[in-house]
């Protein structure tokens, strides 16, 4: 297959580094990332309220004020083990519902970001975000199903019988009854490395699958097609063909995210370690602020990924042959004509 032609962007020089440009552009859309952040934060409020309500009841008049502020000691945890068990069950269930909602919100946000970046408009980005979210939602929902199936396959390969047979049994000589503990291996270090390798491989391919999802969604939006399977296959092929071009900007953004998290993480841990019995709520406010600022940046970084994916896709994805929508058009003679079949104008028709 011939190299896909590079789609020139009229009037703009190609940015030197794709991910830096992506970050700059995404950051320049505060209404979009603020809305995306608020949606996620609102969902997260539910388990927090659940915990707060439970703890208010549990503490009530039964503990000296402030005595549990710095440390939920083992006495408290043990005496309330039944209550925490019920709280855990409720949080687990609520969390599962929220997790599913978050996945759907993610699909919606992806459409929104892509709409914003593909239209290249200035201003009105929030409207375009919601328009894009709605427009691509069902396509991305289907892609989500494909992603989940792909993740299941990955789990089966790396945390299932394939790994156990190939790596543990054949290469390492571990008998089947010892796949979990690996105690037949000669040393703990060997077991640690094997476990680490397994978990590293899983994390790597998990990340690659998410990147593949980003590019697949971008392709679906760019081509405005609806076959997620075909788009996914084509994207996989593109990623194999252009691994550096497709993965480098994502790796750059990942590096930024990791740096941000580690840096802010050290700060948060320092604050958390100082929150003690006599501390005021300022430490809690600082923890809240650090957590949410990082989350906002992560939302921006997710938007940046789509911008980077759009930039890269425009370079490496061959435009598909489409029938000329103007071939058959509708309109009065001498007046404006509208193409028949183009979905942008479907509503006006």
């Amino acid at each position: 297959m011939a190299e896909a032609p590079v789609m020139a962007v009229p009037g703009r020089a190609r940015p030197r580094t794709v991910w830096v440009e992506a970050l700059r552009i995404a950051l320049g859309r505060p209404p979009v990332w603020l809305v995306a952040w608020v949606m996620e934060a609102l969902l997260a409020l539910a388990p927090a309220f659940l915990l707060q309500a439970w703890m208010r009841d549990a503490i009530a008049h039964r503990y000296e004020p402030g005595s549990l502020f710095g440390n939920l000691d083992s006495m408290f945890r043990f005496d309330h083990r039944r209550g925490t068990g019920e709280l855990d069950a409720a949080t687990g269930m609520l969390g599962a519902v929220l997790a599913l909602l978050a996945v759907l919100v993610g699909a919606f946000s992806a459409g929104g970001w892509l709409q914003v970046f593909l239209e290249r408009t200035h201003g009105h980005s929030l409207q375009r975000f919601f328009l894009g979210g709605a427009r691509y939602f069902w396509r991305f929902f289907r892609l989500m199903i494909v992603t989940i199936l792909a993740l299941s396959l990955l789990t089966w390969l790396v945390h299932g019988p394939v790994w156990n047979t190939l790596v543990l049994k054949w290469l390492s000589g571990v008998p089947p009854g010892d796949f979990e503990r690996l105690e037949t291996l000669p040393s703990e270090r060997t077991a640690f490395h094997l476990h680490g390798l397994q978990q590293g491989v899983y994390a790597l391919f998990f990340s690659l699958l998410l990147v593949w999802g980003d590019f697949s969604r971008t392709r679906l939006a760019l081509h405005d097609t609806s076959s997620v399977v075909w788009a996914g296959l084509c994207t996989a092929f593109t990623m194999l063909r252009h691994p550096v071009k497709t993965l480098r900007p994502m790796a750059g953004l990942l590096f930024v995210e990791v740096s941000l998290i580690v840096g802010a993480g050290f700060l948060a841990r320092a604050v958390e370690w100082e929150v003690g019995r006599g501390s005021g709520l300022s430490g809690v406010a600082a923890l809240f602020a650090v957590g949410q600022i990082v989350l906002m940046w992560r939302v921006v970084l997710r938007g940046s990924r789509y911008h980077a994916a759009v930039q890269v896709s425009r370079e490496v994805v061959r435009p598909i042959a489409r029938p000329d929508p103007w071939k058959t058009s509708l309109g009065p003679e001498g007046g404006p004509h509208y193409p028949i079949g183009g979905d942008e104008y479907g509503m006006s028709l």
Partner: protein
Amino acid sequence: MAGLVLRRPSTDRSRGRRGSRTWCRCAILALVLPSAGLAQSGEERSCRADYRIRASVDVPAHGLAGEETIVWRNDSRDDVPDLWFHLYWNAFANNRSTHLREAGYDLGGVAENDEWGWQRVTSIQAGGVELLPMLRWRAPEDLNEEDRTVFSVQLPKPVKAGESLPVTLRWEARIPRVRRRTGYKGDFLFIAQWFPKLGVYEAGNGWNCHQFHASTEFFSDYGVYDVTLDLPAGYEGKIGASGVLAEPERAVEGRVTARFVAPSPKDQVQPDRTGKLPVVHDFAWTADPDYVVHERTFRFDEWAARYPDEVPRVALALGRAIDEVRLRDVDVTVLVQPEHADQAERHFEAACTSLFFYGLWFGEYPYQHLTVVDPAWGGGAAGGMEYPTLFTAGSRMFATERMFTPESVTVHECGHQFWYGLVGNNEFEAAWLDEGFNTFTQSEAMLRRYGFSQRTTDFASLPFDGVALAREPGGGAIAQVLALKSWNLPLGASLEPLKSSGFLDWWKLQPMLSFGRMRDDPRAGDRSGYLADPDTDPVDTPGWRYADRASYRTNSYRRTATALRSLAGMVGWERFLRGMRLYSERWRYAHPYPQDFFQAFDEGAKVDFSWFFEAAFRSTATVDWSVEVSQKREPRPGGWFQDAAGEWKLREKTAEEKEQERKEKQDASASSDGRAEGAPQDSQGPWRIDLMVRRKGALLLPLKLQLKYADGAAESLVWSREEQARSTWWKPLDGREVSARKLVSAVLDPERVYGFDKDMSDNQWYDATDERTPLRWAERAFTQYAHLLHWFGGIGG
């Protein structure tokens, strides 16, 4: 003798052949000779057994062949016609042994054929007579004919009181894979309970020689061990054992010979501070070509300088001079696996923690040497076990010090040098006398040396400080589906889109941003462990007679530790030390039973706590106290009252009262929650306080109640055992006049003396509520979930 029987009412059926007969005889004597033997000393209950052993190991074939000469001295008053021996490894010979049956036929791990182990005696000679034809298998507890862990031989003539009998045995064995404390794993050898070992002959009761049960440990007489080991040359310099190397290892023709003596020749002739000559009651050894050898010396002066208050405090409590509580220096060898080499110094430090605190409190460690063993990977079942002057710990890579790994297990097992090693209780029948005492002391020593532990969460086997506050999505079947964790399909298939996996979990949970820090008091685990199963069995139960292994662990370890902490709280630490010290010194190198402890403690502490010992150790009684408080201002008088003439008259409000009422209404409307109680005290009536303490459960312990009032006043009240026996509730403020002071707190057991209470969350009441704490922890849950849901969002887009 009579006293002996009184002390052990539950042990008759656990005896050997002569046991039950003797039991009946002694029970009758007990009735006519009240407390005649109560002061029986340790020496009168012990015989002496010295072992000289020579053994050779064929590592590739997992074979061991040995010869031993036991010189058994009959220190009882009986003439003994037979000898009873343990062959512990036969518990691992097949899945029909009593040990394996009790363990659910499961040896653990992968049941390959080369994992079984056994012992076979090929010769027993005494006085030039071959006794092997007289060998008779014994199963005193369950009559299991397939159990081969105990045998006896009839002697040509009885061993008279005070006589010694040399017996020579030859045996061969197949070394089991390490599944229960002993065996091999690759080149790693941990060899314990490995030679035919005599039971304990107890005057009047016969041989105490129990089968090897799944939940029991060991019991044997004190003596001296002289052991020569013959191993492949690859083990040179990497052999550790009880005692000390008596001479340098010799390597000849691909083999290495090492001779160990326990106690060391020097220790054998040097009386300890109690005036007794040190002896040991077992011998274990280990070898591994991979060992990294780390040698240091415990120095009392260094530790005394680190804890300058502790030594004078103990000396004062015991009424001794500081020099009298000084401890000897001890050479410590740590045999550690290469991947844990960086933890060798931590093992040493933890061992020193035990040598210092246990030694200071309960009497010094009298031997010149101590060996700490870190078992090989896959040999973890050998870990966490104690033998004289040697013990196995256990660790993992990347263990941080705040996790208390390996410190916790090292302190515990080293602590067994005192409880088990020096005070040699019967671990079959009263394991709690060492496990529980040691668990208690371990927590106390850990607290003093290390403080609180830090809870961690593992990601890809790497520990991370802190824990998640809210549970992750998932749990029930539906939640698992929604959280994309597990989708069950027809025909038994399932999909697992999101598998928990180290690095991924780290990224998902963002622990650096969202985890909360949690610390644990090492003593708290004793209480929670006990309350996990508080009333299945009494503590004082033979090891194999507990309902299950969980009950064994709960009672032998945790409930005992909880009871001792309560005891210390009730009598005071100094008095407690005196009681424990007397017990540990009186029964050093001897075999105490529970009643011996009760008696020695009372005597040393100068108390009579027999009621407590019965309740805590010989009943399953539990307790749950709670306090409830309701207080409100007494209303102003209103309604109809009789005057002096007997006429009923409606009481009119005074002008002052009307003004007051108006002010109160204003205050109430100004306060959003309508709490008029916050108004100045002199503007309203006095406080009526209803306070009730309740008790559930039959355990009666004197209970302190501490009250604090708004004006800073405080008072302490005690709900005595006698009062508790009469009623399950107590209203200490009933009958009192209404109070001008508002109660701000009511706390039961304010010094936290009792860990027995099943639920301490209702043991205190505070007038003020705490709004900040729920907010503080909700923030952690919020941040955790915000990042978690962001991660889930990435799957959708």
